[in-house]
Each structure stands twice: as structure tokens, then as C-alpha cells.
């Protein structure tokens, strides 16, 4: 297999792991959420690349064109839905962070855990 020929999958995997690392390693809740958002975006890229065909164009059919190559529109449609889901998740996460800041006065995970133990 040509390892460099599938560079888009490498981009997907790298982005996925960078996001995942941020979610696990960062203590700041906003940074965690940024990581989560990158983690989701990586999957969007996976879907978009799988629908792309070399020299393929947007699948708009009109008369006079019969030999045209089209990219697969279905993964793009799926990802539109997944983007909406991702936005809602991030929005809800940010809303929870605002509430945490109001209640605890901090958005650092270790500080919050310490406050309740006291």
C-alpha cells in the first residue's frame, strides 16, 4: 500500500489524536472542549474525503452533460447533520462551563474537584 498516497487519512488520524490528547491532558474545561471539537472535526474530514473522486464535480445534473464524474454527495449531507450535532454539543458544553464558573468561580478541573471535597 502506498502510505503517502492516503495522506488524507493521516491528516484525519493526526487531528483525531491531537483533539483526543487535549481532552485527556488539559485541565482547563474550555481547552478540553476545544479538543473535543477538533476530535469531532477530524471525523467530518474522514467522511468528506471518502466521498471525493478525482476530477469529480458537484453532482448537479443538467442537460447536455452525460460523461461527467460526480463526487458522492451523501457523505457531505451526513456531515452537515453531524456538524449541527457537533455545534449543539459544544454550545451545551460552553453553557455548562458558564454555569460552573458562576457556581465555583473557576474552570480548572482540579480546582473544582478540590472545592467540593472541602
Amino acid at each position: 500500500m502506498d502510505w503517502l498516497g492516503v495522506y488524507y487519512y493521516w491528516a484525519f488520524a493526526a487531528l483525531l489524536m491531537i483533539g483526543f490528547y487535549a481532552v485527556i491532558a488539559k485541565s482547563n474545561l474550555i481547552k478540553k472542549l476545544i479538543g473535543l471539537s477538533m476530535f469531532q472535526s477530524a471525523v467530518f474530514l474522514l467522511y468528506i474525503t471518502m466521498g471525493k473522486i478525482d476530477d469529480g464535480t458537484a453532482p448537479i445534473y443538467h442537460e447536455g452533460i452525460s460523461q461527467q464524474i460526480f463526487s458522492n454527495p451523501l457523505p457531505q449531507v451526513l456531515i452537515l447533520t453531524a456538524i449541527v450535532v457537533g455545534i449543539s454539543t459544544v454550545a451545551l458544553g460552553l453553557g455548562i462551563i458558564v454555569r460552573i464558573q458562576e457556581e465555583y468561580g473557576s474552570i480548572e478541573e482540579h480546582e473544582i474537584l478540590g472545592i467540593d471535597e472541602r
Partner: protein
Amino acid sequence: MSAWAQHLPALQVGVPLLTTPIIVLLRPHGLSWAAATLTSCFTFFIAVMLTVAVLQGQQVQYSMGAWPAPHGIALSVDAFSAILLLIVTGASTVALLAARQIVNAEIEASRQPLFYTAWLLALAGFVGILVSADAFNIFVFMEISSLASYVLIAGGSDRRALPAVFKYLVMGTIGATFYLIGIGLIYLMTGTLNLADMEVRIREVSDQKPILVAAGFITIGLALKAAVFPLHLWLPNAYTYAPVPVTVFLAACSTKVSLYLLLRFDFFLFQPNLLNHNIQFSYFIMPLAILAILAASSLAMFERNLKRLLAYSSIAQVGYILLGASLVSLIGLTASVIHMFNHALAKAALFLCVACLATRCANLRIDSLRGVAKQMPWTMAAFLLAGLSLIGVPGTAGFISKWYLITAALDEGLLGVGLIVVVAAGSLMAVYYLWRVIEAAYFGKTNEGAEIVGEAPLGILVVCWLVVLSNYYFGLAPSLPTTLSSAAAQILLGQVP
């Protein structure tokens, strides 16, 4: 079937989903509760109708907008989804019936319509997962139900719910995204999202590696959402700090729905098409199930907060459900599915008792519940009876599933003996951790200076006893859950029932 009965699968999702915008607008807050409860009752009624149709042997298939599958959106209900539909809609209905006073006390009137809206969205998401026959729609419904559950858990007045729900949000999203990666890989290889079509086309795929990777992603992602043992970290705090009615609802169904998906994908899609995947599944899941039973039960034995104790017990019960499935046999899967039903009954009853206690007691630490049985005799009697069902005493619903599980284990020879020891040890630990509560409530001296509390409000108590008695009804006359779950096991193993 009459004309409108054909549309039952669509109505099952449509009714709770479409009533949500109305409930947001209902301002006098008693009205939003009544509307949500009525909707939930109606969804339960639809689930019963669908179950009757399934029991009569009808194929319940539905194409949205009459576009035929695989290109249109297909819904389908079989015995496995029917039993889960009963659990989910039933749990939502009893939890809502008991919710009113607690929600009035905990959530200010102006936010109540939003709370009930989130509740119905969660319900719609759960039933959507169960009726959907399309992998991507399942993802969307999974996210609808998860987002709504986060709102419900954080909706109470306890600020400790906020960090708990943030953790749940992060872990839940990672789980759902893993599922999405798995679906993407299968789509890449087969070009379809319809589950039945996928199953046919996977057979024609020559390179099995991407499918195996997809199986890994989907299994781990769903195990995260189902709180399978080492991935359970989000569950205890989320259940503990959520408002009690939400705990009743989520404890009875949220992990079960993810387990349903896990079993459906693995048995329906991967095991018939991947070489030796049944052995891989068994070797991977069985140790986790055993660890879940032993580790979570021992954590429950030393837990001081009643709600967290029951939450750890839920993690242990997920272990029992997976233990049955990991045997990959007809009777093992039957045990697994029937335990989903019986555990939902027992845990809903126990958390409803907690709801009764929460109306009168300031906090739910076992220490502060000393002597409470003298003041709340009916509540604690219900707790005792529901606890017996969780342990699996003969005559209760819990006994039926343990019986099936032990029968399934006996077919496995020496390994089976070991598994029976694990099940017995888990049950003994359950006796111990429930006994600590009973001992404190019945034999403990009332704390000095504790105010005199009365029995819980009649409304909640009646609902609680209704669920407790159904534990005994389904223990003595278990034909409904056993029929459905053995049919479900046959479907999972690809034998036509």
C-alpha cells in the same frame, strides 16, 4: 391492521418529538407536567400496541414517506426492540408520574416547561434509536437523547451536578464519535447505511480489515455510553447529583439502550460476517463483565451515599447483562435481554423509593437515614421488597434472570462453574450493600436532633408500590418478558423465530 396502526413505528418517535414545541409554550407549570405525562403515557400505549403486533408475528416495517429501503429511511420493530420500547416508555411514564412534587421543589416554575421539553426529547431520542433501521439515524437519535439527558441531569439545584455532567458530556461525545467513525468505515466499504442492506453487502467485501476496525470503534464507543466497567467513570456522579426523577428515568433505560445497540451491531452485523468474531467478542466482553460485577459491587459495599450506592449497583448489573451475551448462546442471550427488563424494573422501583425518601430527608447519606423506617414504613417496605428483586430472591423478577443466567452458564462446563461463582458472589455482595441500608433504616437509632418526618406524599408512594408489585408480578408470571427475550435472542443469533 387498520389504517393508522400501520403508522405506529413513526408515531412512536413522532409523538414525543412533535409535542416538545408545544410544551415549551405551556406557561402555567402544572400544565407542562400534565402534557408531558400524557404524551409519555401515549408513547407507552403505542409501545404496547407494537409489542402486541410483534407477538402476533407481524413484521413491523415502515418506510418514511413511502420511499422504499435501502434508499428511503426505514423503521423496523422486532421482539428485541419491542421489549426495550416497553422498558423505555414505561420508565419514562412512571418517573414522570412521580416527578411532579420533586420537580416543583427543586426547579423554579419558569424553567419547568424547558425541563419537561428536555425530558420528552430524551424519550424521543431513546425510542428513535430503538425503532430506527438506519445506522446514521441511530447516531442522530443517540445525540438527541444524550444532549437532552445532559440538560436533565444538570437541571436540578445541586451544583455538583455540573462537573459531573461535563464529564458525561465529554465521555458521551467521544463514545458517539467513535460510533460515527465505525459507521463511516463500514459505509466506505459497503456504500450503505441501512442495517439490513449493510449485513448483505458486508459479505461481499473482500478486505475484512476495515470492517474489523469498525467493529472495534463501534464496540468501544457504545461500551463507553453503556458504562461497561472500565469506561463507567461518568455514571456514578451523574446519577448521584441528578434530580431523582431523572435518575429513575435514566437508570432504567439509558445504559440499556446503548447495550441494545451494542448487541444488535455485534450479533447482527459483525459475528456472521467476520471470521471468529464471536470468539473475539466473548474473550473481550467476558472479563469486563466479570470485573464489572465484582469491582462495582465491592465499591457499592463501601459507599456512604444511597444514590451513588445504587449507581454502582447499576454498573454491576450491566456486567450481568454482558455476561449473558458473552456466552454467545441462545439461552445466554435470553438471560441478557430478560435481565435488561428485570433490572429496569428493580432499579426503577429502588430509585422511586429514593424519590420518596428525598421528599422528606435533607440528604441521602446512609448515616442520616437511621431509624427512618419508623417514620416512613411504607417507603422502606417498598425498598426492602424491591431490594429482594435486585438480589434475585425466588418469586421476584430478578430471580428469573439469574436463573436463566445460571442455566446458560451450566452449558459451558468448567468455565460455567466459575461464572456461577461470580454471579453468586455478586448476589451476596448485593445482599450486603442493600442490608446496610435496611439495617440503618430499621434498626438504627434515630439521629439526635433529627426532625420528625412523615410518610412520603401519597402520589409518589402509589407509583413506587405499583413498580414494586410489578417486580413480583413478572417474577411469578414471567411469560411476557421470557417470550420476547427468547424471540430477541433468536433474532440476534440469526435463527428465524
